[in-house]
């Protein structure tokens, strides 16, 4: 106990000493003071306060030393890549610094300048801690530009490098982060196969992502599309139905409903397809309307949406159960958690700055950190708002596509009537005979319960209803 108290006292003393040195440097104003103030503030763990001095040093210096580069890495990890994205493009790439190169690559990617993004991302050495992210960005840029083979190579390297960093990582959180990166790159390889219409290979890659992964629920819909194009409609239906499991209740995928309807349509089970469409209008229209009621009156607010996420689950549930689920889904996103951690750290730092003796230096730091917090609040608020608007827009987009399927079914039914034919059976019954199985598969009948270990392995057993028969109608004479 004594040791802990001693360590805490020593740490507090050290923090104050470094902060004092930074303060002294600020008022004396010697040459290269920005680097000195940055170093002292960094040592005293005032990361957000040190940001403007780091930025000034990057702008004014011609070369960054190794020590600064190492501190910059930590600073970006603590405060996020957006903290220094405001620097000019020239300043970001002039130093050959991997940390600044990653910031530049991400900035270019957001600006849709994929070629610039990949050129700089590929310069980051493989032994740098940001290399998995850099390879991920480069691979995705190439994926969008259609350079499939090189893109695949970058993703494979990303998996390899992430796994080696994961082994070296001492903290559980960091291990998890590299795992997510590795799984994300695997998912992108699957997407590359999908893009090339190699659906079986895409499915095999999706299957490499474990069910415990954060990415796994997102693979289901993509795997279902791959099965749809392989014409294994039963498997596609089985994958989509997984979202009905209580364990995945917070995941909304309006697109899964359209795929559901298309699968029934391809099996010529028109009534089932129409039932899915009607269900879509009933369920999602209400979701969209209720969400609109909340979102639209607050669309110009800079804090409403972030407060919505910060509020308790009970409060959001009372507002609307769908909003609670949507908020849960947003909270699970890596970007949101990382930004939220930075936001909380910045707030904490501001609290400590306010406790200090107020002078020109502390007032300057308070102003800088306060601006950073305001910007982060708006950023997070915008992120949540965008997610909600995307959801509403998706519902409308798929609603149009659903209507198109409905028209096509009506047209098919009319054609059958004109040609005096009907589909072979009114309703196909599910049977294991209709399930496409591999050597490793073993199926049981679904008895109404979703078991966690079975999630994602379901298949329907519906027989295609597409054969037609002539109708022998007895026409009564009048």
């Amino acid at each position: 106990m004594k040791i802990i108290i001693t360590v805490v006292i020593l740490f507090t003393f050290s923090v104050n000493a470094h902060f004092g040195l930074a303060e002294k440097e600020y008022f004396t104003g010697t040459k290269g003071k920005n680097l000195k103030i940055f170093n002292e503030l960094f040592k005293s763990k005032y990361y957000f306060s040190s940001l403007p001095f780091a930025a000034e040093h990057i702008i004014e210096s011609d070369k960054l030393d190794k020590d600064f580069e190492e501190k910059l890495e930590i600073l970006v990890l603590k405060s996020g890549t957006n903290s220094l994205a405001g620097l000019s493009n020239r300043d970001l790439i002039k130093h050959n610094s991997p940390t600044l190169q990653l910031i530049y690559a991400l900035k270019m990617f957001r600006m849709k300048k994929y070629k610039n993004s990949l050129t700089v991302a590929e310069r980051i050495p493989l032994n740098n801690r940001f290399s998995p992210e850099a390879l991920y960005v480069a691979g995705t840029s190439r994926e969008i530009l259609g350079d499939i083979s090189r893109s695949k190579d970058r993703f494979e390297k990303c998996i390899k490098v992430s796994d080696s960093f994961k082994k070296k990582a001492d903290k559980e959180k960091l291990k998890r982060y590299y795992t997510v990166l590795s799984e994300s790159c695997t998912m992108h390889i699957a997407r590359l196969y999908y893009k090339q219409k190699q659906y079986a290979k895409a499915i095999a890659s999706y299957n490499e992502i474990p069910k415990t992964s954060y990415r796994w629920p997102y693979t289901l819909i993509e795997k279902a599309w791959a099965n749809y194009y392989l014409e294994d409609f039963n498997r596609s239906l089985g994958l989509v139905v997984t979202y009905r499991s209580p364990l995945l209740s917070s995941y909304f995928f309006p697109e899964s409903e359209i795929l559901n309807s298309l699968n029934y349509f391809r099996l010529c089970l028109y009534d089932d397809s129409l039932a899915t469409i009607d269900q879509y209008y009933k369920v999602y229209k209400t979701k969209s309307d209720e969400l609109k009621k909340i979102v639209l009156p607050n669309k110009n607010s800079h804090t409403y949406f972030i407060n919505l996420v910060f509020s308790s689950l009970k409060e959001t549930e009372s507002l609307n159960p769908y909003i609670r689920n949507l908020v849960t889904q947003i909270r699970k996103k890596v970007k949101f958690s990382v930004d939220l951690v930075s936001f909380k750290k910045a707030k904490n730092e501001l609290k400590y700055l306010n406790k200090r003796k107020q002078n020109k230096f502390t007032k300057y730091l308070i102003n800088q950190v306060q601006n950073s917090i305001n910007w982060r609040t708006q950023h997070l608020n915008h992120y949540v708002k965008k997610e909600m608007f995307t959801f509403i827009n998706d519902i409308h987009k798929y609603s149009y596509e659903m209507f198109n399927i409905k028209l096509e079914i009506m047209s098919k039914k009319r054609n059958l009537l004109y040609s005096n034919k009907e589909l072979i059976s009114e309703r196909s019954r599910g049977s294991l005979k209709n399930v496409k199985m591999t050597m490793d598969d073993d199926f049981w009948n679904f008895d109404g319960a979703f078991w966690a270990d079975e999630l994602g392995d379901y298949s329907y057993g519906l027989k295609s209803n597409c054969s037609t028969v002539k109708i022998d109608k007895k026409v009564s004479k009048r």
Partner: protein
Amino acid sequence: MKYLIIFMICTSSYAQNKNVIVEYKKYESFDLGNLEVKGQLLAPGDLSVKERDRKVFERALYERFDFNTESKKDIRNLR
């Protein structure tokens, strides 16, 4: 000779200008059964309609060619 031909043409046209009374038959009957028409039959004997399927137009339903939107979102949500 030349003068003789001119004289004959003039005489003939003069004769034509005279009032000619043409008398038609008041009654004439045709025995259609005995009529015989010589030639080849070119058209089919009875009316025929060729059967063909109705042209079926299909709507372009929703397709998923890639997941580029999701991939872009992944990077935007990276850090």
